[in-house]
């Protein structure tokens, strides 16, 4: 069931000279329990697309459904959809509005009609889950935080809702390397333990390579590629043409291959690259010195 998008087209400022068609005839299905990455050039339509998935933008042309519920239907229960599908915005400033960090994180769970005690527990857990010190930040205004801390609070607010589908729009932009790794680990853990569906929009190729199985590549409002992440990062030229790149170590493997070293060109991690390079160098050595043996 899960999420079905069919022939979705969306135009901002329709009928004005500035009309911009942000999505052209986009179709895909995301099954329950998938972990999907979305990449694409700046302005390619990623944020527009995911805002359709929790009905922040209603489908104009084409269809979007979540668990069989048509989000274009006039009488759709928006509240039920937004409880199920949690969306972390690209700009945390668009999401955070309460006076204190604790009140802000409590906003979502309180609307779910939970008891005060349950809300308080969720707030504490969510703030800890994003790696912040609850006692230190709870009474602060969200605007008395650093850029990265504010983003973490915006994420905590959505985690506290415990949505079945978690959509994150560039969640690690502005996080330091450790904070980024810890957050991604946390998301992976929630994905595995709770069996939720995760959609991760990112400009960080290392990150999607590491996290997702399936990757959707957007280009000028259309889906350019959709498939297993390794297959997609094999298409380095195409990705470059559309403003993207492959992870740094994938680039290295490719350069080494071009120069004759037999390494797999889809390595992503340091460990994979180390193993491949050692094996290939070993073979070269063996070939070079084989007749001495």
């Amino acid at each position, binding site marked *: 069931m899960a999420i079905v998008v069919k022939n979705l087209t969306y135009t901002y400022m329709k009928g004005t000279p500035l009309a911009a068609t942000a999505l052209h005839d986009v179709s895909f299905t995301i099954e329950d329990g998938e972990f999907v990455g979305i990449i694409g050039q*700046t302005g390619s339509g990623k944020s527009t697309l995911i805002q359709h998935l929790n009905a922040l933008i209603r489908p104009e042309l084409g269809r979007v459904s979540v668990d069989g519920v048509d989000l274009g239907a006039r009488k759709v229960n928006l509240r039920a959809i937004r409880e199920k599908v949690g969306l972390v915005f*690209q700009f945390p400033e668009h999401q955070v509005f309460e006076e204190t960090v604790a009140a802000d994180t409590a906003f979502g769970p309180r609307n779910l009609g939970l008891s005060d005690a349950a809300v308080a527990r969720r707030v504490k857990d969510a703030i800890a889950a994003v790696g912040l010190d609850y006692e230190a930040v709870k009474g602060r205004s969200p605007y008395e935080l650093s850029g990265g801390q504010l983003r973490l609070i915006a994420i905590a607010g959505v985690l506290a809702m415990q949505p079945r589908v978690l959509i994150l729009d560039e969640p690690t932009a502005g996080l330091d390397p450790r*904070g980024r790794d810890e957050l991604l680990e946390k998301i992976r853990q929630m994905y595995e333990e709770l069996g939720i569906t995760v959609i991760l929009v990112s400009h960080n190729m290392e990150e999607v390579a590491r996290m997702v199985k399936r990757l959707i590549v957007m280009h000028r409002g259309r889906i350019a590629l959709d498939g297993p992440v390794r297959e997609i990062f094999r298409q380095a030229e195409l990705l470059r043409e559309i403003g993207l790149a492959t992870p740094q170590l994938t680039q290295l493997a490719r350069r080494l291959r071009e120069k004759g070293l037999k390494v797999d060109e889809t390595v992503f991690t340091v460990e994979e690259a*180390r193993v491949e390079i050692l094996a290939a160098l070993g073979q070269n050595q063996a070939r070079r010195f084989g007749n001495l043996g």
Partner: protein
Amino acid sequence: MIRVEGLTHVYQTRQGQELKAVDGVDLNIAPGEFVAIIGHNGSGKSTLAKHFNALLTPTSGRVWVAGISTSDAGRLWEIRQKVGMVFQNPDNQIVATTVEEDAAFGPENLGVAPAEIRRRVDEALQAVGMEEYARHAPHLLSGGQKQRVAIAGVLAMRPACIVLDEPTAMLDPVGREEVLGTIKRLNRDEGITVVLITHFMEEAVEAGRVIVMENGRIVMDGKPKEVFSQVRRLKELHLDVPPITELAQSLAREGVPVTPDTLTVEEMVQQLLGN
């Protein structure tokens, strides 16, 4: 260009707490330098940078920009003319209703002649690849597009020094390369002093000097190769090295002849295979 002596900045929170965000920083940035500042979330990078164009003034200590003290309220305008700042959130920077008016705002305020403004705006929008969007409304752009417009606005002012607070956080890989290329070109060809705050280690390696902040203090300051060869120390500070550097170190441990301060793909290819 920028001189900082004993700078401490204490925020007063609405609950009446005091929060020391910058703690006794001394720093000298010479004209024409390209300095990257890295450090974990909340380490004080943005707070420090906001002192470079007098958006914040010291709680104690002093900051001079081109010899002018930033505490000299009468000369604020001169300081802002010399140091242009691109904020962490581009939304905070948007002032006009079209992209080109937005980019023209700075030079207009400096009293630049209209023909010259036109030229600068066109150039700046081109430098960030946003000329197609000149007549669009900036608040209706995608995240990365807004970031580019914010950078164009500062470029059009032609300041002697540009301070960029995570300017590429929301750009795609090619966009990041382009913006970084523009920054490097301005630094190299026009001698503009650049201060770049970033969480991308691959970007920091491009600077001439890397400063690491922790808890409001400067804890490392050196050439990229000096700083990034200290993997363990960086990891303690919530930072990292580029994946290629980490790979170099792990290959070196296995006896492969690569240096542990390898920073780029090309350096690695060279060392592994020669020419």
